[in-house]
């Protein structure tokens, strides 16, 4: 196509395209709140300025809205029952009661199922920032996108999608559980972050954030010991309990523990981790003890790979938790 043909094609473009839906109700709703009354003009000027400021602040979060549909019962979108598909706009709340469920389309990158007894708010709906707030309840999220595009804020911290599927539950105070069923999630607070891969879960608490992640089949005494360390200032005593109970399968927990214990205990944690799941080539004890990030990342890759194989091949093949190879 040459320049002339392109120009001819442009001339053929329609000047008018009807919107796919009637936009008037939304416009009417917005202008209905600001009937023009000249005698009140000087009163409305500062109000309009304030509204403009709010619009700018809201606008920073994006223009948008996500599709939402009921799966069962009648969830509330704002204060109105959601009887058919609707649009969840930035700032809107969606709430389910004991018998209702809903499905939110996360822009074009995924979906969130909102289970009964849940309250969520759309915080941002930009292409680079898809963000919900989970005030309470349980959501199942599935996202197919590059990492760090989808975020769920809770009272305990923020779940950051690294390309994954997960279930996140919390009460209104921020006590809850994150269970990852695909990919990996980072749970972050100002103080710390936890990496939770497929087949693992982590408890969350207000003011603390995420504890140390553990695998789905971790024994209850081990999980209890981790919770004591994380949330009851367990210190050296609970560290020793965790180390004594740890198996090769629990390497992801020891990898996190290494970074959270008092520096005087790092040597003991590293030695136990290395005995259960030897470090990859290039990772030295000295580097690990000073929390050298490349060394920790390298170790993480190995731990993650083995856990991935164990999880996806569960019931199909038996995988050596120390090496990731098939046990014949």
């Amino acid at each position, binding site marked *: 196509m040459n320049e002339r043909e*392109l*120009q001819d094609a*442009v001339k053929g473009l329609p000047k008018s395209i009807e919107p796919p839906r009637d936009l008037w109700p939304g416009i009417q709703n917005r202008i209905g709140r600001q009937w*023009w009354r000249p005698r009140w003009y000087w009163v409305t000027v500062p109000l309009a300025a304030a509204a403009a400021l709010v619009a700018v602040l809201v606008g920073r979060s994006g*223009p*948008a809205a996500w599709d939402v549909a009921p799966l069962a019962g009648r969830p509330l979108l704002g204060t109105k029952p959601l009887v058919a598909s609707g649009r969840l706009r930035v700032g809107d709340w969606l709430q389910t009661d004991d018998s209702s469920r809903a499905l939110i389309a996360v822009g074009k990158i995924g979906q969130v199922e909102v289970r009964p007894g849940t309250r969520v708010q759309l915080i941002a709906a930009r292409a680079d920032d898809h963000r919900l707030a989970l005030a309470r309840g349980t959501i199942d999220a599935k996202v197919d996108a590059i990492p760090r595009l989808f975020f769920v804020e809770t009272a305990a911290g923020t779940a950051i999608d690294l390309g994954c599927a997960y279930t996140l539950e919390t009460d209104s105070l921020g006590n809850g559980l994150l269970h990852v069923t695909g990919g990996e999630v980072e749970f972050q607070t100002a103080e710390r972050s936890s990496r939770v891969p497929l087949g693992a879960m982590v408890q969350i608490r207000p003011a603390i954030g995420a504890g140390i992640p553990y695998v789905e089949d971790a024994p209850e005494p081990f999980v209890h010991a981790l919770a004591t360390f994380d949330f009851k200032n367990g210190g050296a005593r609970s560290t020793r309990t965790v180390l004594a109970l740890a198996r090769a399968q629990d390497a992801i927990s020891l990898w996190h523990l290494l970074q959270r214990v008092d520096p005087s205990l790092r040597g003991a944690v590293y030695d136990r981790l290395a005995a259960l799941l030897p470090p990859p080539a290039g990772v030295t004890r000295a580097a690990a003890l000073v929390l050298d990030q490349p060394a920790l990342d390298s170790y993480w890759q190995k731990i993650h790979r083995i856990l991935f194989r164990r999880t996806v091949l569960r019931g199909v093949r038996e995988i050596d938790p120390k090496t990731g190879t098939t046990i014949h």
Partner: protein
Amino acid sequence: MTDDLVARAQAGDQTAFRDLYHQHAGRVYALCLRLTGDAYAAEERTQDVFVRLWEKVRLFRGESAFSSWLHRLAVNVVMNEHRTTGRRERRVATAENPESLEPHVGHSTEGLSIDLERAIAELPDGAREVFVLYDVEGYGHGEIASLTGIAEGTSKAQLFRARRLLREKLER
């Protein structure tokens, strides 16, 4: 007819304003759709334009055609939104849903139009905005510079880039 509706809307008559909306929604939506390259964003911007129109309609003095005045207002609303938020939405919606671009009026080159619309939607933001404003809407580079906040030379370069990209896309 339009003059009467405008006068009544200026007096605060919402019914007249609704009729103005129905008269001009298609034109405004087409502009918003092409400038944003995103069907959802276009709906939002179209609503923004008419809310802004409701606020500003009293300022219309009849010095130009109402449609031209509204068109300029619409361009300002869309460009201000871009400047304010720095938003750069991906344009997947229109690329994946060309039906949303299909004109509701008869057209002999409909297929080519849809291909071109899709190709425009897939342009990089800056190139798309300049192309739509210059080649589709007939603005000059000076006006585009003041509307978008870029230099005239940048506008020319973006136009050149947009045309080249479009020719390449349409030849595939």
